[in-house]
């Protein structure tokens, strides 16, 4: 069946991802022994013990097996230096990143869908050209520039919103919203530009189809035609990219998280790489990569649900 095929592929890709993650971090330069023991690394007894504890004497495949076995059981290992459990790190950091990316996606859709509809319906008009030009502009600004400009304008000058820091949802809802407002806008700006252009493009193509003309000939109102007839067949590219982005943003919002001091996955990952905390890097990268693959998989399945032709192709 169509679904079964995709699940098999998913499993294979996930497996490959785990192998690659492991290889990547295992091959990074620097020895964990030095990092843990510091100056005491010259002591042969101590370093031998650390090597044994970390299974560093085993061959690569054995180490991989050991690591994967642990992962499957929910044990991602512990950081070398402070013995922090990687799973704890993930549990703390992941929700923050997810909240940020969901907010950014929602905001960009809220902006992109109406703009795209307007633009496509009045394709070629001055409004359309203005929207398209603005989209181009928004696409061309790097996120770190948006971030620092926003901070400059809204936080420093106007004092409306906090420049950095994160307030948890459980502590204060308004505080939480205010703390993610700027980072959300930063992320949403280029996203909404991409979505607007994508949706507009597909909408224009759909609006040329004969069934749209037929709907007009039936005397149906324009808004209905746009929303009910045109939007659905035009959403495929948008949905695909939406899904891909959701997966990608888990690891991709790094700069924004860093600049706004948000305790998310990306910022922790950068720290870990810098501090050579490879176990942490391994665990976080695995989660990020798996999330991406799963998101893609879900998008694929959703395709089949939305476009009945795909299921029966």
């Amino acid at each position, binding site marked *: 069946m169509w679904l079964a095929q995709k699940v098999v592929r998913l499993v294979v890709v996930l497996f490959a991802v785990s192998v690659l993650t492991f290889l990547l971090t295992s091959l990074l330069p620097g020895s964990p022994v030095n990092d843990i023991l510091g100056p005491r690394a010259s002591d042969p007894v101590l370093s031998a013990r650390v090597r044994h504890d970390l299974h560093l004497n085993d061959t690569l495949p054995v180490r991989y097996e050991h690591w994967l076995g642990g992962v499957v059981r929910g044990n991602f290992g512990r950081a070398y230096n402070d013995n922090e459990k990687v799973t704890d790190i993930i549990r703390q950091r992941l929700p923050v990143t997810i909240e940020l990316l969901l907010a950014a996606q929602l905001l960009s859709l809220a902006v992109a869908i109406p703009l795209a509809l307007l633009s496509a319906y009045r394709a*070629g008009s001055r409004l359309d050209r203005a929207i398209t030009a603005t989209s181009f502009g928004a696409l061309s600004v790097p996120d770190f520039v948006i971030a620092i400009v926003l901070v400059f304008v809204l936080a420093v000058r106007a004092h409306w919103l906090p420049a950095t820091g994160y307030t948890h949802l459980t502590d204060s809802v308004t505080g939480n919203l205010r703390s993610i407002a700027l980072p959300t806008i930063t992320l949403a700006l280029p996203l909404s530009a991409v979505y607007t252009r994508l949706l507009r493009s597909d909408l224009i193509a759909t609006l040329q189809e004969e069934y749209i003309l037929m*709907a007009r000939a*039936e005397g149906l109102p324009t808004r209905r035609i746009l929303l009910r007839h045109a939007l659905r067949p035009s959403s495929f590219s948008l949905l695909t990219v939406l899904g891909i982005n959701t997966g990608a943003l888990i690891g991709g919002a790094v700069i924004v998280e860093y600049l706004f001091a948000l305790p998310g996955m990306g910022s922790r990952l950068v720290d870990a790489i810098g501090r050579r905390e490879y176990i942490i890097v391994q665990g976080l990268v695995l989660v990020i990569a798996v999330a991406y693959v799963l998101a893609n998989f879900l998008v694929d399945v959703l395709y089949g649900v939305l476009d009945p032709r795909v299921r029966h192709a």
Partner: protein
Amino acid sequence: MTLLAQTALATPLLDVRDLVVHLRAPGGTVRAVDGVSFRLAPGEVLGLVGESGSGKTVMARALLGLTPRHAIARASGEVLFLGRDLRALGERALRDVRGREVAMVFQDPMTALNPVMTIGAQLAEPMRHHLGLGRREARTRAIELLERVGIPSPQRRVSDYPHHLSGGMRQRVVLAIALSCGPKLLIADEPTTALDVTVQAQILDLIGDLQHEQQMAVVLISHDLEVVGGRADRIAVMYAGRIVEQAAARAVFDAPRMPYTEALLRSVPRLDQPSHTRLEAIPGRPPGLDAALVGCRFAPRCPRADDRCRSEEPALGADDAAPDHLYRCWYPV
């Protein structure tokens, strides 16, 4: 009283007066419809015949105001439906006419149906919008309509998607949608061109049945005279944006006046001719509609053309003996 006589007395359902539609094109302007006039009585079937490039599709769409606004270079004339000029109506008022009083059927059933909506949903939509039917009512009506157009097991088909159906079935669905609100006029733009030959006859028969049942007027557009042949009360022949002959169907077939019509009739292959009879094609091609045209537009391809034809365009006129048979030729057949 004969239908024709009744027709002469009744007020026309549709009265198109000197319709002109010129379109913008990369090279300049295309005079797709260059002064078309005809009338249609209630319940009458008018067959509109023309080669591709004659402007018939543009005309069909222009009747309902479906030509994209930005593409129109020039437009004038009146389209009187029950006395109201459709061209003068605003978009909102037009929408009330479309689907409800005047319906349209398109050529390619593969592309005329929305691929991501069920048949039932697409059928129900105009009824819910124009007639205010509730969801369940509309679904019941939809099933009835499917049955009426000859689709087997309509209760199941109602939840199907268009790609589950064959071409002929889809066209039946398109017809059902068009008729759902009981329109008085149906414009069928090449309804069978995209279908297999065997299915074509079925669809045309269906249109004929429905037309009788609903006492609907039909404008049946085709490039194929055979399609229009037995089904129309009157036939209008269109060439290069103009009507060049218009008469009762019988008259057009038995005694065509315009050489073009005659050539069209002759070019249809017949089974009773001896085998290997050469097909008679009309030499040349229809004029590009962007050039300014001088004289009779058929002159370049007409075997009877002379200098008068080439310099002066004939007006649409008739013989005193047959005032209902209009034609546009200096030297009629």
